[in-house]
């Protein structure tokens, strides 16, 4: 379509702040409505399988949790060429097809969207399995939506406050944020931590400690 726009939230809602992107799209869908040229999508962790949707779009907005080494809750906005893309051929699994690689594939096929905006937030907490967004990250959703809506306006795409009921495709049902949070089993019932070898790297104090060779006491 002439002015097609894909607004994509990516990440895994089961790992706390990793769900930021998906929750942004949910919130956008709940509050605003768009014309047929705009597609809102909960992309989950679909990696390469998102390629067709990206290639079909003239413009792309992506919400995601990003690690740019900022303070938790700080936002990052990258546009067009600033949006990272690369391919890794040594990955072990299709599951390691990160979003950057999807963009690289689109570029290789000559089908990268004409304009792209990445709206990211630095996560605070990832190792809270089954958990929801931390306050500092959740508080950024309105800001992230504001940036997205500015892009939409700048591209001359119509949008208005929602008057009709939200579509059934995003954020409804059991995985919607409210139901997801309310149905969470207790910490005694369900272990919530991850593998600290991997997850610790996302904490600044941990990164600096690692570099100075200290042993980090594990948090339980």
């Amino acid at each position: 379509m002439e002015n097609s726009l894909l607004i994509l939230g990516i990440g895994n809602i089961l790992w706390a702040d990793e769900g930021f992107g998906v929750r942004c799209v949910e919130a956008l869908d709940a509050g605003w409505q768009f014309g047929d040229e705009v597609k809102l999508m909960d992309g989950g962790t679909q990696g390469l399988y998102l390629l067709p949707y990206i290639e079909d779009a003239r413009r792309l907005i992506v919400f995601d949790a990003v690690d740019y080494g900022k303070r938790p809750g700080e936002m990052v906005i990258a546009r067009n060429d600033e949006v990272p893309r690369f391919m890794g051929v040594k990955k072990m699994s299709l599951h390691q097809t990160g979003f950057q690689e999807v963009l690289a594939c689109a570029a290789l096929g000559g089908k990268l969207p004409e304009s792209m905006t990445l709206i990211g937030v630095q996560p605070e907490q990832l190792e809270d399995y089954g958990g929801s967004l931390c306050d500092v990250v959740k508080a950024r959703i309105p800001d992230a939506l504001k940036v997205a809506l500015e892009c939409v306006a700048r591209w001359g795409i119509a949008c208005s406050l929602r008057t009709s009921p939200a579509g059934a495709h995003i954020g409804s049902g059991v995985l919607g944020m409210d139901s997801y949070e309310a149905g969470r089993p207790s910490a005694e019932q369900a272990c919530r931590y991850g593998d600290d070898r991997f997850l610790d790297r996302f904490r600044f104090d941990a990164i600096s400690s690692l570099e100075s060779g200290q042993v980090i006491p594990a948090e339980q």
Partner: protein
Amino acid sequence: MGSYETQGFKLDNSGKRVVVDPISRIEGHLRVEVNLDSDNVIRNAVSTGTMWRGLEVILKGRDPRDAWAFTERICGVCTGTHALTSVRAVEDALGIQIPENANTIRNIMQLNLFSHDHLVHFYHLHALDWVDVVSALKADPKQTSELAQSISSWPLSSPGYFRDVQGRLQKFVESGQLGPFTNGYWGNPAYKLPPEANLMAVTHYLEALDFQKEIVKIHTILGGKNPHPNWLVGGVPCAINVNDVGAAGALNMERLNLIKNILDRTREFVEQVYIPDLLAIASFYKDWLYGGGLSSHNVLSYGDIPQKANDYSAANLLFPRGAIVGGDLTKVNAVDLRDPEEIQEFVNHSWYKYPDENKGLHPWDGITEPNYHPEGPNFKGMRTKIENLDESAKYSWIKAPRWKGNAMEVGCLSRMLLGYVQPKQYPFIKETIDGVLKKLAIPITALFSTLGRTAARGIETLYSVHLQSEQFDKLMASIKNGDTATANIEKWDPSRWPSEAKGVGFTEAPRGALGHWVKIKGGKIDSYQCVVPTTWNGSPRDAKGQIGAFEASLLNTPLAKADQPLEILRTLHSFDPCLACATHIMSPEGQELSKVTVR
């Protein structure tokens, strides 16, 4: 541990240790450590899952009718197959019978996952283990065209077409920011294709990436949306109304025709591009028959694609079910997912806690209690940064599942072998395998290899598109007969459930046998256990020291270059490994997806 023998393999960890660890700032999945002898031959292999995966525990107390939606989020690739397994488990527990049409539609979706996943796996993940992208730049487009036309009637094969792709590739390789393929081991002597074959394969890599978008449309049509299609306990959430018009709502003639059209084109792509490429590549690697591992000993499949609805017995399954043990191809053992003595998980070498670790636990009695303590006399590093694991202690987040005490290989090679040895029930599989063996002039034993696994995946793709057409015809016939039922909601309401129930659901995921075991109490999930394919294949050792399929597959493989473990990646990729629940954090410095350390 020094050296010891198990399952016919000799393990020796005295040589230098090589660590291949794709842990990055982005994700954590799978790490292998191997010991090489003085000739760079792998003599010991240790596979470890690097991430806690505890979907089970967060399902406690949830509504069992919603479990599929959570399991769909376990990972990004196998969404549908987890959802299907989950609804089958709940239906089994509650005694819910689904309509024939629902079964057929589920089959079409599941088979669609196979053709999609296998195609993407082959070209996007695995081809570059065999195909040297940089060498493709040196190819002569005219000769490439001749090669392509000699093996297939696929129309996109002119010299100009290949020249054009080569030009794009050149530009891409040169472009600074993308630098896409700079991570590869290009030029490694383990690459054996001539430049023209490389260019042909890279070209089809691009075509496959493009074509996959057609295949996924079927999931959108039948699942209501994509990604994350909808599923339903009791059937499928997809009404049939052939007289309906327009894009919204029910399955109408227009959509059925679109499905038919996509199925035909997928079949064409598989027959004219994927299979000829596979055979062409294989013909250059016929001498590289490493990586068989457990496949010549023990293979397992739960089976899938029930012909008739609600009958999950082996005789009714179009994907074979059974177990071969000890390499005895004359005997297919029956597999019972309910029998507490058959499938059991052990944690002697896994970072979990059982009250009594001498015993394995059947998934209905399964416990998922993390106990992360990297340790052992040979362990080096710290909790947050492991340098060397010690396989004599606990060393993986993956449990060790066993079938009647045996470590098993699951996946496409297991399925195709089980089909091959039962030709009466699976003539298509038998004939196709015989055709491939004849074409490559290799014996059946050549299938017990990395290459054999890769070939089995292609053969299975062919089988899947063939079955898919059959299932589609069946659906059309049923609709023509006036049957439009797609769901049975008799027992939708929890007031109609027993106060306690337990069930098991299974599928064959593209990467292997997948089971979900659920217990329901008072209308809520009391316990939920998933045993996923990569738990079988990526299994660590058990109390007896028996190794898992990944570990076995790496043994005795020579590396052309110790610091470029191309052969390790090639073999592990051939399993299409899947360690679920990827986190996809975006980082601007993603280049270092994989790290190799030689000690």
